[in-house]
């Protein structure tokens, strides 16, 4: 504590007192069932799985696992809801339902934030300031589109596709549910959504909210499960569209499986974004940007700036600044408001990160990690830098999906662009420079769907998001995010 008598001591470390977010206002059940046709029903499979808190390894609740038969019930409910209610309703009424969802999410945002951090391990600062507000904003944005679709695509009108099957990942559980459900509903589709098996709780809370908003039964169905459930959704003949966010491997499987079925699909897959720092950039700002690009949400971000490209002349300076900054990062309890880096989402993900980091060391990379201590229980990984790596290293080519940054240098603009584009992915990219004309030259030449110049990892419901090349196809967010859910007529 700083008192008036003492001078501020900048030379020794400041300790932060714990500032945990309270959980007493959060109501969690011991067991969650499937949300089908407006009701919570026990699964035909009779199977439940545990969802745990990755920061402690402790079980939180039992969650129903949807089998093929359950998927079938959900699809049937969604089809009936489409035929009976959703496609018959005036678009302006549809719009009001979606606005309602947005509002209730805002009202319950604190509860949702805490559950998101409990179930997924992300710092409360992020779930409170990013995930949950953006999720409700997404519903608010698309709500307004529902009765304005005639203005969206010049010369054309739109027609809903029907029933959409949606599969979402564990890194932004509620936000991804919003990205999927909001545009689908606004364009007049009904949905069957599968949350990820490690983070189903906020999706089940969203099911409660949808009940509370009094949506017609079956318009939104939420059925947790793992890979098998996802497979049953992808292969279900009663769906008109599949929307998937997840790994490129699974995305390719979905694309192949859907060939010849006439189902529409949109894919938001992996990434290995280059974050390019030019020597005229504001270096301190750039360092903050690099930290945010790779350590935001423990690096569990498909658009993470996981490859850092630094212009040669400033490389040593940037790397030193980065190391200093990493020393100040607070790793620990996701529910503590001071925490910068929370828990790794699951044991399986931690294993994957460890494997790739070992490969980085084996292939000759130089590893750096700060001196921080990690909690004893749960899944944790220190923020990590790699230097002395080149294009052919696995940690430069493969998506790690963890707090691991691979650093390379370059001399010319052309070399930076060449290196940035030397990847099968094309989701995002970053450019740091004080030269306006250079911003436009470089952002234009990076083959990726979202480019952040002098910033990184910013999201907004009005801003389209999605990849080039093996990072997927279709956009989510903004006007362009309507297109994957409509047929143009």
């Amino acid at each position: 504590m700083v008192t008036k008598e003492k001078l501020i001591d900048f030379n020794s470390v400041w300790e932060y007192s714990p500032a945990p977010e309270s959980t007493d206002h959060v109501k969690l059940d011991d067991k969650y069932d499937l949300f089908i046709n407006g009701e919570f029903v026990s699964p035909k499979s009779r199977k439940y799985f545990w969802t745990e808190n990755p920061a402690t390894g402790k079980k939180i609740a039992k969650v129903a696992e949807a089998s093929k038969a359950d998927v079938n019930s959900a699809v049937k409910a969604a089809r009936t809801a489409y035929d009976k209610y959703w496609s018959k309703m005036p678009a302006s009424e549809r719009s009001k339902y979606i606005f309602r969802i947005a509002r209730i999410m805002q009202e319950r945002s604190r509860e949702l934030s805490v559950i998101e951090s409990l179930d997924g391990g992300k710092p409360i600062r992020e779930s409170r300031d990013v995930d949950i507000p953006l999720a409700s904003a997404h519903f608010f944005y698309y709500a307004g589109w529902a009765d304005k679709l005639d203005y969206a695509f010049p010369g054309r009108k739109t027609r809903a596709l029907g029933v959409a099957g949606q599969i979402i990942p564990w890194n932004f559980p509620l936000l991804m549910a919003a990205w999927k459900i909001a545009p689908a509903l606004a364009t007049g589709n009904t949905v069957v959504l599968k949350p990820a098996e490690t983070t189903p709780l906020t999706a089940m809370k969203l099911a409660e909210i949808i009940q509370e908003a009094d949506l017609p039964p079956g318009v939104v169905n939420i059925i947790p499960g793992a890979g098998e459930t996802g497979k049953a959704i992808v292969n279900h003949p009663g769906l008109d569209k599949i929307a998937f966010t997840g790994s490129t491997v699974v995305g390719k499987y979905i694309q192949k499986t859907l060939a010849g079925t006439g189902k529409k699909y949109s894919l938001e897959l992996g990434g290995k974004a280059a974050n390019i720092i030019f020597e005229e950039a504001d270096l301190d700002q750039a360092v903050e940007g690099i930290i945010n690009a790779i350590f935001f949400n423990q690096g569990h971000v498909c658009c993470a700036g996981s490859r850092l490209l630094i212009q040669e002349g400033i490389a040593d300076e940037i790397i030193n600044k980065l190391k200093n900054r990493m020393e100040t990062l607070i790793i620990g309890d996701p529910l503590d408001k001071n925490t910068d880096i929370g828990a790794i989402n699951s044991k399986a993900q931690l294993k994957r990160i460890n494997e790739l980091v070992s490969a980085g060391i084996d292939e000759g990379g130089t590893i750096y990690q700060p001196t921080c201590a990690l909690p004893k229980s749960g899944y944790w990984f220190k923020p990590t830098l790699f230097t002395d790596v080149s294009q052919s290293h696995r940690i430069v080519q493969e998506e790690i999906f963890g707090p691991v940054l691979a650093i390379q240098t370059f001399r010319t603009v052309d070399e930076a662009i060449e290196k940035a584009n030397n990847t099968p992915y094309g989701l995002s990219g970053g450019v740091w420079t004080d030269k306006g004309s250079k911003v436009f030259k470089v952002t234009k030449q990076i083959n990726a769907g979202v480019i952040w110049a002098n910033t990184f990892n910013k999201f907004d419901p009005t801003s389209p998001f999605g990849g080039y090349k093996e990072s997927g196809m279709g956009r989510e967010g903004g006007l362009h995010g309507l297109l994957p859910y409509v047929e143009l007529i």
Partner: protein
Amino acid sequence: MKKRLEVLKTYKIYIGGKFPRTESGRYYLLEGKNKKPLANICRGSRKDFRNSVVAARKAFSGWSGRTAYNRGQILYRIAEMLEGRREQFVSELILQGDSAAKAEKEVNISIDRFIYYAGWSDKYIQLFSSVNPVASPHFNFSVPEPTGVVTMIAPEESGLLGLISVIAPVIVGGNTCVVLASHSKPLCAVSFAEVLHSSDVPGGVVNMLTGFRSELLDNFSTHMDVNAVIYCGDDKKEGKRVMENSSLNVKRPHIINTKDWTKEKAQDPYQILDTQEIKTTWHPIGI
């Protein structure tokens, strides 16, 4: 008096701005009415295709980097060159079995279709772009950019108009392409390549192969340096195969099953959008 001996044309393929014969040395005989031999058409090979993709990739940065105005001018120039050689195209269509009236009509619409897309070159970006009012101090905008190298299995039944209707929206958007011409009606495709060659279209932007669909379908849809594939036709099995193969590197597959290319509905700015990617750029606003 003895009639002058006609000079016959050798129909070759078009790769990287050059007119080679197929590297495979193979051909197939194209016959006209009463089994009259019309030409020995190159039976393009896998290697010809690969060379074409290399040429198309090489041409991509230059072509996509041209100004929209310049691409529009070049597309207009293509239409001018077509107009100048209209008699040749009409007679080729007649040779392939069309009536004079039908041939005349097809050539007219083909020329007009290029004019149509030429005019879109500096407008589709405005149509499909947006400035996004994000709730933070950032300037944020989204614009379409060309997907990259596009392969096309051109319509079998419409050797000129169908071909032009799929090529024009792809190249006006800054993509480069490799095209497999109609197997049974390949004459106009080769002559069209000659038109492109004299229309300021840089070599490699359009590469034109002739040959067998069944033989090249997999190559057109599996190549790892191809970003999108357009399949024209109604063969369900082939369409499915193209879509399956596309998953290898998340190519954008498009199945086009237009029956009548003369209709106005066969031209459309949303066809340009099919081979575009939306890029969103963020920049902070501040001092």
